[in-house]
């Protein structure tokens, strides 16, 4: 067993007290590596909660700098951080919460050429991206590298999330075959989003990562969880791994990654 310092025992006491986490679960968290894709509305709460939880190594990917319009929901970024790279702003807050972690920043765009090399080193990936092409890219790369991940999306008052364990549960493409055409979906900057729902969905994704690492409970695998914050109705739809999925089915047609045309949208 790892030697916990007194400070660590106190810091993580509320996890250690949980029977489903305990000393062993906290050790797993400290040994775990999680990659957060996107330091925006979803990525911010995810990154802060994973840091607070003591996930030992956290990678965070985002190519953008902080803009004033981000601050309504991207809670790791403060007014003083405008024009600062989002990954640096997020790293500063994560280390302020928990200085003992290793935070790796990737200020770049995830594309077909670099994504597999980046995700390969991680135990779990959080998709906090804001556009369909990148969501499909994350799904495809994670399935190819067999890395479990949490899909998440928010728009207006709505959120949806599912967890994918490649080889075991249905992937994003089992249900949503291909990205919608770039002009078919409103970009979020046009559609708007209620800031707090980024926290609602992001904390669900962070919870899935913590459950996966510790083995506590059961995951949102083969399940699409969605909510409408206007009514606060939550709904779970059962999904099934599809034999004819072009990615994880029996005769896959997608065997390598390609970059799709992006409708850029800033969640």
């Amino acid at each position: 067993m790892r030697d916990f310092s007194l400070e660590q025992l106190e810091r993580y006491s509320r996890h250690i007290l949980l029977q489903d986490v305990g000393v062993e679960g906290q050790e797993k968290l400290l040994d775990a590596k999680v990659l957060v894709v996107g330091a925006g509305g979803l990525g911010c709460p995810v990154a802060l909660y994973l840091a607070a939880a003591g996930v030992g190594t956290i990678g965070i990917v985002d190519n953008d700098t902080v803009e004033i319009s981000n601050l309504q929901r991207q809670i790791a970024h403060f007014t003083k951080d405008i024009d600062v790279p989002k990954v640096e702003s997020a790293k500063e807050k994560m280390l302020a919460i928990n200085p003992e972690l290793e935070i790796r920043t990737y200020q770049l765009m995830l594309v077909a050429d670099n994504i597999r090399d980046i995700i390969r080193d991680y135990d779990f990936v959080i998709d906090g991206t804001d556009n369909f092409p990148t969501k499909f890219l994350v799904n495809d790369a994670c399935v190819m590298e067999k890395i479990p991940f949490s899909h998440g999306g928010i728009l207006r008052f709505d959120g949806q999330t599912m967890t994918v364990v490649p080889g075991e549960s249905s992937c994003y493409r089992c249900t949503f075959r291909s990205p919608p055409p770039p002009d078919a979906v409103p970009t979020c900057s046009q559609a708007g989003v209620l800031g707090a729902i980024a926290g609602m969905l992001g904390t669900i994704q962070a919870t899935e990562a913590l459950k996966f690492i510790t083995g506590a409970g059961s995951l949102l695998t083969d399940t699409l969880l969605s909510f409408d914050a206007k009514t606060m109705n939550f709904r779970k739809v059962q999904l099934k791994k599809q034999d004819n999925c072009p990615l994880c089915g029996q005769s896959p047609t997608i065997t390598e990654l390609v970059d799709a045309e992006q409708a850029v949208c800033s969640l």
Partner: protein
Amino acid sequence: MAKTVVVDAEKNCRGVGCPLNMVYAKVELAKLKSGQVLEIVLDDGPPINNVPGSVQKEGHEVLDKKQLEDGSWQVLIRKA
């Protein structure tokens, strides 16, 4: 107690309040193998009233509780 219990680990939690004393108990139990025994000393009051019950809820067995001269309690716990 009539029969002698072999103690495999000891932890003095005098002066340690709730819930950190339970955290210490879990850390010490995590180091033991199933069937081994932890002797833990807990303060009178909330510690002795709470920790043994919490330990039992996690499936471990409380073998004995004995109040010591200074008012604290010596508790023997067998790991599940």
